């Protein structure tokens, strides 16, 4: 009993930090509708600043290449001044990030904001890795701590102080939002921006002030966690996941619920550690991280009421959709081009091209799910990973001719996809994004970290695919990567692309897009929305699973690190930024944005960006999101875009009469935004014509 109490009190430490981070996330969301995945990154950076001030008296600046350390004292400085400097620092860092990244995106679609914040998160983490390294730093206490006893349990008093800070912060925010004009103005502006502007509230100014307060919270969380958890860039960045969980329980609106949930989460994890030590049959890993997310998932699905109503992206804010004009001809052209590239490239570039193709396949699963149907999934890599591990354990079945094991492994991802689709029947928009992130975190903790399933750190090996005795594998002796494997991957990906394109123009595709535009209206015209959503999740997870099989064959050994929680986030971000409404977007994502893809390999070979790759990727992601809010592919598909020229070239090589196609010449790619523009323009024209007709 005493032990239970002790672990409860110890859990207050982590719980308090989750709560503080969660409060910051709620503040940011309420003021700007941004779910800031980079929130804990600001906390992480502040923690480094604080620790370095304390130990060496040097101020750490958030950049690379330029000198990043300014000595402001000859030796380490005291807690209080260091605390003050770090709070100011964190607040400024948050403010600058807001000005550069988030403010231009205030009116962007929710997913664009998510992608930009993922970019910031990757960038900050990469800077921290370069400047501070990945070794964990253990640090001294921050809050005054003396051992105290409650019911014969001795524990450090700083945990109680932390609890006090959290309660005070939650109450202060509650009062601020309920009683002050600033709080009212924030709530008003979040609900109806036009209405707020009409009574003299500047939405941007309100957003800025809230963001600054939230950044101060991030810095404070970063400082307070240093004595509890040893400091390294990745694990601090990942604190955003439990914080998101806490914010989710508070529905991204309630401060007390968020604070309470954060603390409960910390206590729960602490008690699970105790249980694992005492009960022999408990799984060793993952319970503490995984179970809370399962609980959140179930709670959200069962109790979802009005969550997501506001975050629900309206029709006008959906990313633009493409309409494939001649899928068959395009697929043939892509196949031929792909073959040429495969043969022309050698060595690591060929391997990079194959990686690009596999990323394209993963992104295609998102084009279908997020692009066409508007369902956000941050768990896509969970499907990929699940199939990859299943493929590694098929045993004798793995020896069957090639497509069979891959297809079987992909099929195992389908039930998982349907399972994740269930919450989507009740939860929408950005909330769905967070729920699926919870799924990814739970999968990561309970399944992928489970050594019995994933083979621990060493991972699991996968045999080469064969086709009636022909070895299709990527390596044969010193021959790596082999063209034949590239051809296999290329054929699969082109087939998937062709399938997705055909789906888009089919009647099923129209139904899916109708659901994306307006679920209720779709139901009114007789669409079974629930069934179609589940169908989309099933198909999408199948495609992702297929990509998982290819990835397993490609890498030979799969380990859980490839499918960690944040890989799903990165994949969605690159697919979105490249253009999630289009097949071409998936291709661009694979070739240009994949971190092990062709373009990045070229850059690395020519410019030797090597160690800076993640920073470049993060910054590029954030700025592409700001510049092309409809995705790169949509920009290319514009009036004078590259896509039109490519399409014309294709039609010259493969005339329409050969392979048919939906669209007759003259070719013009029509996006949904074009349609709305014409629709808006038409009545004016019609009125003018009528006027003319009446007055001959």
């Amino acid at each position: 009993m005493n032990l239970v109490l002790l672990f409860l009190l110890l859990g207050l430490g982590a719980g308090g930090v989750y709560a503080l981070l969660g409060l910051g996330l709620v503040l940011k969301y309420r003021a700007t509708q941004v779910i800031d995945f980079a929130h804990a990154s600001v906390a992480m950076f502040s923690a480094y600043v604080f620790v370095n001030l304390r130990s060496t008296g040097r101020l750490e600046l958030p950049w690379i290449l330029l000198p990043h350390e300014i000595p402001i004292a000859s030796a380490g400085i005291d807690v209080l001044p260091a605390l003050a400097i770090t709070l100011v620092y964190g607040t400024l860092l948050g403010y600058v990030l807001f000005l550069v990244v988030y403010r231009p995106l205030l009116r962007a679609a929710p997913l664009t904001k998510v992608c930009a914040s993922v970019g910031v998160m990757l960038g900050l983490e990469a800077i921290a890795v370069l400047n501070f390294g990945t070794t964990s730093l253990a640090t001294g206490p921050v809050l005054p701590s003396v051992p105290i006893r409650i019911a014969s349990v001795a524990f450090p008093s700083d945990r109680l102080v932390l609890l006090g800070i959290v309660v005070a912060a939650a109450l202060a925010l509650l009062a601020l939002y309920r009683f002050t004009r600033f709080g009212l103005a924030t709530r008003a502006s979040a609900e109806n921006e036009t209405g707020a502007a009409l009574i003299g509230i500047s939405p941007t100014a309100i957003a800025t002030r809230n963001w600054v307060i939230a950044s101060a919270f991030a810095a404070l969380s970063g400082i307070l966690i240093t004595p509890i958890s040893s400091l390294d860039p990745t694990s601090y960045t990942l604190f955003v996941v439990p914080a998101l969980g806490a914010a989710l329980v508070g529905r991204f609106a309630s401060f007390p619920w968020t604070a309470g949930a954060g603390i409960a989460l910390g206590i729960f994890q602490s008690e699970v550690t105790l249980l694992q030590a005492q009960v022999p049959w408990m799984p060793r890993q993952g319970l503490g991280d995984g179970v809370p997310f399962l609980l959140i998932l179930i709670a959200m699905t069962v109790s979802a009421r009005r969550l997501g109503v506001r975050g629900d992206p309206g029709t006008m804010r959906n990313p633009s959709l493409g309409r494939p004009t001649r899928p068959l001809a395009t697929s043939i052209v892509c196949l031929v081009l792909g073959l040429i590239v495969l043969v022309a490239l050698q060595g690591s570039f060929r391997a990079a091209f194959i990686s690009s193709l596999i990323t394209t396949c993963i992104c295609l699963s998102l084009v279908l799910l997020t692009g066409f149907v508007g369902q956000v999934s941050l768990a896509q890599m969970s499907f990929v990973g699940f199939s990859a591990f299943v493929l590694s354990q098929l045993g004798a079945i793995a020896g069957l001719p090639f497509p069979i094991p891959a297809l079987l492994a992909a099929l195992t991802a389908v039930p998982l996809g349907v399972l994740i689709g269930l919450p989507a029947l009740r939860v929408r928009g950005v909330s769905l994004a967070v729920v699926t992130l919870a799924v990814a975190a739970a999968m990561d903790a309970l399944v992928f970290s489970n050594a019995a399933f994933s083979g621990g750190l060493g991972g699991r090996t996968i045999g080469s695919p064969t086709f009636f005795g022909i070895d299709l594998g990527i390596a044969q002796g010193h021959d790596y990567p082999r063209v034949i494997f590239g051809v296999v991957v290329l054929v699969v990906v082109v087939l998937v692309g062709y399938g997705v394109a055909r789906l888009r123009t089919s009647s099923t595709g129209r139904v899916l897009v109708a659901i994306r535009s307006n679920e209720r209206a779709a139901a009114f015209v007789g669409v079974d929305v629930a069934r179609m959503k589940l169908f989309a999740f099933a198909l999408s997870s199948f495609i992702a699973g297929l990509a998982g099989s290819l990835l397993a064959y490609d890498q030979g050994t799969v380990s859980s690190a490839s499918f960690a929680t944040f890989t799903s986030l990165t994949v969605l971000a690159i697919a979105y930024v490249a253009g999630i409404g289009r097949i071409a977007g998936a291709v661009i994502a694979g070739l240009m944005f994949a971190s092990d893809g062709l373009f990045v390999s070229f850059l690395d070979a020519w410019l030797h960006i090597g160690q800076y790759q993640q920073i470049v990727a993060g910054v590029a992601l954030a700025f592409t999101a700001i510049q092309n809010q409809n995705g790169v592919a949509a920009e290319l598909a514009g009036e004078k875009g590259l896509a039109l020229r490519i399409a014309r070239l294709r039609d010259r090589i493969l005339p329409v009469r050969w392979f048919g196609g939906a669209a007759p010449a003259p070719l013009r790619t029509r996006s949904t935004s074009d349609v709305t523009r014409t629709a808006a323009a038409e009545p004016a024209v019609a009125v003018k014509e009528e006027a003319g007709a009446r007055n001959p």
Partner: protein
Amino acid sequence: MLEVTDLTAGYNGLAVVRGVTVTVGRGEVVALLGPNGAGKTTTLKAVAGLLKPLGGTISVDGAATAGRPAHVLARRGVALVPEDRAIFADLTTRENLRVAASGKAKDREAEVLDLLPELRKCLNRKAGLLSGGEQQMLAVGRALVGRPKLLVVDEMSLGLAPVVVQRLLPVLRDVAARGTGVLVVEQHVHLALEVVDRAYVLTHGRLVMEGTAERLRSDEGLLAASYFGDQRAAERLVASSGGSAESPEAAPLEPRGPLP
């Protein structure tokens, strides 16, 4: 106090309203009338700063305001009650009023409640739970709580029962009596003409007529003719009754040349 001169405004570079000139004096209630799609709401949006004009000038109390964002204009005393009311459904009635009142919130709140006593009984209810009429009252009240120099009301009667409209329209008179200029768009033409001092008629984005409420009231045919864009008939009517109802800026409709 409001002077709109030669305003051109529209969406995506496409002009919906062309060459519109409107003035509202202190303590005056002015209506903007016209059929659907005439550009009334577009004009109001430009006045309130929700839409950047493509051309022309707008000034309030002599200070140019065209192109300023809505929140700046609101602080300078231009209050718009938009068509969709834009009340904050999650805030209570009292919070809705308080968030709009800077400074002496209590006094101003009391002032508004004297004008719209019906709001008293729902002060602590969430605005989203109010009836349509109450919501509209709240929208007007929220606009007034900042003591605007100019109150702009778009389609106040939309979706409201006639009895509520008859209650609300005269409130505008009370507001004007305190020296505020009021500009309204109203579909209930006859009710509106009971309340306003002057009215402009817009058709196809152009001003086709301007006159005192009295004149427009007394000549049904004139109003009907202008509503249907039949300017020749309108001018005949005007000519036969002696005088010119057409404002100097109102150009003839697009497809026809100027009259001889």
